[in-house]
């Protein structure tokens, strides 16, 4: 019986093993649609919550900033680079991260621009982006000893939470997107990619698994920087409904 269902094998990797093992036993009681439904990979909507912890690292020169940047943990880099997107995504701010604001305020406009232009969406690994920042600082930085206003390094304390919303087909997925908030979108489109070091976001990966390649590609192509998370949600729903 298991062999007869082998064509569904690519779809089952996320399915809970204990439930999956029961389906063949009752297959004769289920319609083909129901069998397919139970073998579809499920998508669990997660979300993330942040709070901020002061690392105790306070710097007042570009030189000490560079040193701290090299030594900071990933959650600290993550906080300063992604906080704007997480919290201020709906506002037309001048720069895309708090590093840039500090540079601008202290007379380093080129560094402010270059740091703000870092492509956070293409980035799949924080180590790479840290290296890039260090390279920019070493190449473009000057007046490393000039006394500036202090910069406080803050760490993101994050929790991933299961929202209890599960989708097994496109319809449920669409309804799920409607139910969850913008931080869930942020988690699946941004954080999860960094965690898995993947160029593909969670939504697109799952859509590909259920054979919705076109929708998957369209969602993966959306420019996350140019839209607020609310607009992104609408855009994703448009794609899913097309």
């Amino acid at each position: 019986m298991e062999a007869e269902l082998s064509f569904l094998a690519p779809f089952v990797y996320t399915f809970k093993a204990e439930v999956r093992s029961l389906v063949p036993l009752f297959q004769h009681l289920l319609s083909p649609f129901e069998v397919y439904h139970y073998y579809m990979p499920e998508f669990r909507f997660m979300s993330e919550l942040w709070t901020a912890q002061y690392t105790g690292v306070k710097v007042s020169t570009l030189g000490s900033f560079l040193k701290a940047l090299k030594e900071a943990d990933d959650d600290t880099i993550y906080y300063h680079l992604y906080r704007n997107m997480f919290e201020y995504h709906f506002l037309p701010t001048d720069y895309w991260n708090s590093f840039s604001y500090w540079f601008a305020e202290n007379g380093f406009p080129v560094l402010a621009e270059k740091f703000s232009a870092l492509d956070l969406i293409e980035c799949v690994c924080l180590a790479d982006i840290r290296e890039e920042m260090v390279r920019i600082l070493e190449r473009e930085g000057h007046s490393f000893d000039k006394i500036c206003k202090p910069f406080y390094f803050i760490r993101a304390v994050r929790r991933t939470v299961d929202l209890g919303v599960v989708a097994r087909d496109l319809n449920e997925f669409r309804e799920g997107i409607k139910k969850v908030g913008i931080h869930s979108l942020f988690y699946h489109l941004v954080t999860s990619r960094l965690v898995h070091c993947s160029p593909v976001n969670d939504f697109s990966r799952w859509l590909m698994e259920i054979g919705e390649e076109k929708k998957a590609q369209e969602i993966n192509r959306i420019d996350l920087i140019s839209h607020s998370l609310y607009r992104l949600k609408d855009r994703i729903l448009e794609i899913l409904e097309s």
Partner: protein
Amino acid sequence: MLEEYARYIDKGILRELESLARDLKGIKVLHVNSTKLGGGVAEILHRLVPLMNELGIECHWEVIRGDEEFFRVTKKIHNLLHMPEGKPLSHEDILTYLRYTFENLSHVDTDPYDVVVVHDPQPMGLVIKRKKGQRWIWRCHIDVSSPDEETWKFLETFVNSYDAAIFHIPEFVREGVRIPTFVIPPSIDPLHDKNRELEDGFIKSVLERFSIDPERPIVLQVSRFDRLKDPFGVMEAYRIVKRRLDCQLVLAGSFASDDPEGEEVYREVLEARGDDPDIHILNLPPDSHLEINALQRSATVVVHKPIREGFGLVVSEGMWKGKPVVGSNIGGVRRQVIHGVTGYLVSSTEGAAFRIKQLLVDEDLRRRLGESARERVRHSFLIIRHLKDYLMVFHTLLKGG
């Protein structure tokens, strides 16, 4: 009650909070401060405690006891931490503080709780009761970055006996705090009389009561009568603006009956007004929340131009009402106002006047900045975000970082 907030926030947030709270189910939390009435801490606890209970976290609130003598000492400690210029703590002051702390050890039962949150310096000595397995958090609502050294030395031992501290902004953290330090800004409550929607008729009646012309532009600063709030600088900025543009200035605030300096500043402000009928100096009772709300809603531009400030939540109150704020480029004000996006940050009286003028003449700019200001508060300075931050700290301390 949580449902009442749903219309103000992204709908996913309540689901996220419930999920986070499920992980914390069964824990018992105690908040301790020095008063149930008056002040920002009591105001926030009146709402936070029931909200935590609604999420299934058993949460209680206790107030320490003390007489006039004790609170005179704690007020002195508060001032010495916040503004170090002052008469230092005497041995008698320290003994008074310790005596009342000792008495409160038996008055406040902290034993049954998993998490004890102690607000501000008044009750902080209670930490000597800390039991194994408990998590104690010191929630500091003031700027202790440059305190009187002797006062800080006295309190430092208590501070570092806690499991964690929470400050409004990193700038307020004193070097020497060796425990994990979280950065959690305060918040406003959209359901409080200070912030809830008001009917136009009520707003008009308030303006009438204070003889303010609703048809002409209003520049407003809400703050207690205190030199640190720079009411004289605001008046000067208004006078610069008034040379070219028609407007009225409203300085609304209060001073406590036991605050002789406040009364003195109030008199000086009245004197500085001269015979300008367009400057309205309103000394309001401390519970005039609806009146302040109405004034903020009727303002054309909200100004907050202190020389030194704790956090300045009045900025968020103005922003919540869709007003662009011209604020001092300091401390908590600069954490709320995003320059050019939700208002303007200024470093001088002339700068303030320039920005006020810019806003008075450009309705579209006011609307744009005002809309962004409200959105900024909606995402970052409402009480639901504050609640989430507390739960995150509890989770981190109890379940690991």
